[in-house]
């Protein structure tokens, strides 16, 4: 009898602790932002980056680059030079204010100048230096170097100088430690490049020259991710937020890969194939809720 009661207490404690294994992220405000329609289509957002003054710069699946102010009001847009074949997936605001876009289906990088009517093109289809197959993501490190992730059998990361010269490439197609399958999102922090390795369902971190690589989060490490598509770092640089395309959720983890919490939304705000992710200086998270064709802003709280 006594033993039974103790076992029951232990089981109850275990269950209670189990509920704590995946804590939910809480936010003070969840805001939904619709995209301006494109003719008879309701476009879906993909990549997102932050512009000057907290602007949100969003790529959509009709080949547009949309700019919202920090309050979420649509302010302006422009188009990619071409988008008949397919639409771009990754976008990054460079340190000098230019906007770099991974023009995925044209296998090149487009860099828009401060006057967006002017742009330069880097690369063409191929597997050599400064050649790309499906570039999907582009980021810039604090040292100015630009990193471009590709997939389509040529899954690797090319490191370019701030002026666009090829420096090195690392990673290859596969599921080994230094291998990638559809690297869809990246974030640079303190000399390390965190990569959302979507098809391998994990987050890996490379030294920014690719010399050293470690697996941060994966099924093996006890943190299940379903098609992580993008990631960003909290303002204090200690928490990684991951948009899970397959899981339809947002996952927060430490840079060491320990789960902090998860968020999926309620009936009204439930995510559907979230693609891109960004965080502003106030800690507001922005998720491109691609399946629902909207942006979701998560304000305050988080942990």
């Amino acid at each position: 009898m006594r033993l039974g009661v103790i076992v029951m207490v232990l089981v109850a404690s275990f269950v209670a602790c189990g509920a704590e294994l995946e804590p939910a992220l809480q936010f003070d405000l969840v805001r939904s932002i619709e995209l301006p329609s494109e003719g008879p289509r309701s476009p879906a957002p993909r990549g997102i980056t932050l512009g000057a003054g907290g602007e949100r710069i969003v790529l959509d699946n009709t080949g547009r680059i949309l700019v919202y102010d920090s309050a979420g009001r649509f302010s302006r847009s422009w188009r990619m030079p071409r988008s008949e074949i397919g639409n771009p997936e990754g976008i990054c605001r460079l340190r000098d204010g230019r906007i770099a876009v991974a023009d995925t289906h044209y296998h090149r990088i487009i860099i828009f100048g401060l006057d967006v009517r002017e742009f330069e093109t880097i690369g063409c289809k191929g597997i050599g230096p400064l050649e790309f197959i499906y570039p999907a993501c582009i980021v810039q490190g604090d040292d100015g170097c630009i990193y471009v992730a590709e997939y389509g059998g040529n899954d690797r990361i090319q490191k370019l100088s701030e002026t666009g010269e090829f420096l090195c490439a690392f990673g290859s197609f596969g599921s080994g430690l230094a291998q990638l399958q559809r690297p869809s999102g990246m974030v640079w922090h303190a000399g390390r490049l965190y990569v959302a390795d979507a098809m391998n369902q994990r987050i890996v971190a490379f030294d920014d020259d690719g010399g050293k690589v470690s697996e941060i989060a994966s099924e093996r490490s006890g943190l299940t991710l379903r098609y992580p598509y993008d990631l960003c770092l909290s303002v204090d640089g200690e928490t990684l937020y991951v948009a899970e395309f397959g899981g339809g959720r947002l996952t927060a983890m430490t840079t060491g890969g320990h789960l902090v919490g998860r968020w999926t939304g309620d009936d009204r705000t439930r995510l559907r194939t979230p693609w891109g992710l960004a965080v502003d200086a106030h800690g507001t998270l922005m998720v491109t809720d691609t399946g629902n064709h909207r942006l979701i802003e998560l304000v305050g709280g988080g942990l």
Partner: protein
Amino acid sequence: MNIPFRDILWPRSSRRATLRTWLPWMLALSAVAAGMAALVLGEVLDLVELWPLNLFVFIPWLWRQYFCGPRGVRAVVGFASRLLLFGTAILCLCEPRAVRSDDRLTVMFAVDHSSSITRQASDEIMSWVVAAAATKPERDEVGLLFFGQDAFVELPPAATLPFEAVNVDVGRDGTDVSSALSLGAAMLPEGNAGRIVLVSDGVDTEGDLSSVLDDLKARGVPVDVVPVQYTFESEVWIERLELPTFAEIGRPYEATVIVSSLKKGDGSLRLTQNGKVVFEDQVQLDAGKNRFAIGVQVDTAGYFRFEVEIATDEALDSWKRNNRAMASVHVRGRGSILIVTGSATDERAVSAIRRSLEATERQVVVEPSFAVPRTAQAILPYDCVVLVDVPRAELDEVQIDALYEAVFEDACGFLMVGGPNSYGPGGYGGSKIEQLLPVSMDLTEKKVMPKGALAIVLHTCEFNQGNTWGKNITKRAIKVLDPRDEVGVLAYDYQGADTWVFDMAPVAEYDRMARLINGAQIGDMPGFQLTMQMGLKGLLASDASVRHMIIISDGDPSPPTPKLLQRFVDNRVSVSTVAVFPHGGQDVGVMQQLSKATGGSYYKPNNPNKLPAIFVKEATRLRRSSILLRAFTPVSVEPSPILKGVDSLPQLDGYVLTTARPEATLVLAHEYENEGSVEIDPILSTWRYGVGASAAFTSDLAPKWCGEWVEWSGYRAIVSQMVTEISRQQSSSNLRAKAYAAGSEGVIVVEDWSSESRLLDLLVEVDGPEQDDAVVMRQVGARRYVGRFPLTGRGEYELRVVGGDGERERAHAGFAVMYSSEFMRFRSDPIELERIAERTEGRRLTGSEKGVELFTPDRSLVRTSRSIVDWVLTLLVLWLLLDVAFRRVQIDFRALFGGMRFSDQKTVTVGALLDAQRDRKTVTEVVPAPLSQPSSSPTAEPETAAEPVVGAATLNSLLAERRKKHGSSDS
């Protein structure tokens, strides 16, 4: 236990009732009553029944129970617990419902997608709908449906409207506003206020709108209307093309064309006969109807299709689709045989068959599969159709239907000659062709027949109605397979990631599979790896001998790893890939690589119409195993005129495995021993089907499998006798029929040219584009009968007349409706739309409103409630258990966690129990029986002992047992 009834009703007490004893229950009663009143008045709770509240009069009894019982904290809490229990029971009887009030609004857009709405208008409508949805209040919901002849939901109500393209398959040849409004109302969630926004030209061609409007008004669902306005000042259309009822070879006739115009003008009129221009000239058109007579003549027997078309200036004509009409004439003559060849047909077989048939009186016509007539009437000139190793993928469904009708209804003969592309390997399993053959492709009974396994991977198809296409062709591919074959479908689900739409399962479960395919959500797959991995695992788990995978994709998912591809190769699982709209045609490398590495095929169709044929062809890969290549001599099983003059048969080298139908005449077969039993495979069999007949020859009649046969002197005889046996026998008929379209009706006129005066009982069947129908005929004059029937849409209508004396006489007629009734209306009908808005208290909108205007701000709260009886009942049961436990069980926590002091505490607990027992005895004034009352007999009936005695004895024996136990533990 003898308790006086009065004491049960109102227990006696030695205590005095004071404010202190009254207060707890007064407070509890007030709290319960106030709580319930607050919930009801605050519209949180709704009570369906109020009479159970009267049961609160029994609360004083509860209090009396408490007042007369033991004292102390336990007693007070016990009383409170019972009060709560009682209150919960009363609440349960009141059938409570939780109330939810919300001012959220759901707007369902019902958008007209019929042919009368132009592409430009449709784009403008959807631009407005999408923009309005993007600017709606955040909490509101929006949904979208399209309608034409029928209505389908494109996007169910949700917080956003992620519209990309029309994906539903709406019949565009009509407008049924009533079905759109019914569906729209059904999609509105119960808890929200709802509106329907109807965007249409108001031209309603089908359905009962009035009753639906009454229903919407009763439900309080307003319909806002957005008229799509147009008025044609000028329009030209061909109303009819009339041809003679009966034609003879070489005699001139008149083809009459009725052309209508809203304005005076001119145009170019052109008449073609079987695609060849026989008349073309400029004609003057007056406003109204214009009649033109054109002389025509037919010089041979056969089926003649006449098409007339008028071309005018843009200024005179708005719609081009109503500028054509078609009619046909069947000229009787000597019967013909149609030999149909496929792309892989052995020419030597065709030559050999042709030579054999030319010896008969019939004319022989050889045509490729694409030239097979598309109507049964067009097959009338042929007495027999011979398919020589033609795969099903080379015939479309319309042609197959026409062949089926020709045999079943029009007595045409049908012969299928075998080969690698015929029967099961040709993909005829489950088709109408299989139905009319004397053999089945179901090889379930075959003992050594290997089965196949197929995994189909569906990636989202990014073209108009792409996912609908994907689903339909998948179903068609599955139908081709043998019931024993296994199939599974994988897709990237928006919520569940890479997932099986259904696991590998026998094709016999087709109905379940079709339901799952219809309901599947096909999303944008990030990569092939996991899906292919799952597919391979499923295929390997199957005991099939042939395993295959088909992937349909736009080509941009991440490729699988070489290691996974190698596993496909190692396990001999082939992968065929179909690249559909692969991002400008460039993203095909991965798909090509996949098929090349695994020995599959790669396809890049430039037209989705080619997809079904590809899928069917791929699915038939599994059926290659049903070809038996073995030298043998067929044996004659049943006597048949086909074998007339044939004494002995030469050897055959191969055939396609089939199963003879029990009703068929098995003429030739291959008999062999297999696993101790005798297998009989049909080589030649015949049967009658409908009013026609068919034959199945499962070998190829070519040098490949019939090398000795082709050289054999009896070859010609057996082939010609085979065809003669099943061919239609020409018979004379005195019936002549003519049919034409008149507005929304079809008219058939039958004339009896018999030399004798007679009253006919005519049976007329209509084979229309949507459905088949029977026509009631009415005699309107001497030897003249007329019948009318509703037209069911655009397409060809074939009519068969059967009647006469003795031997049934037959006649055929037909016409085509070249354009839907949508193109017969030249102005929109905003008045009809306004009537809809008025009857449902909706608004007339302009189509320029923004979301905030559309989602009306003067909204009202909607109260909905749902029963919570189950929850209250559960609470009641749980509380009852707790109540009993609370009063009956006493846990001594010090004993539980006290370790070595356990025994001391136990004694105290038992002492308390005895005190409680003593108290109870005092209150109920029951004298217990002696503690150890011996039973008179071990077998005595329990009923003989007084119940309290047994209870007391049990308690005492338990206490004694415990004391004994404690004593031993103490020691």
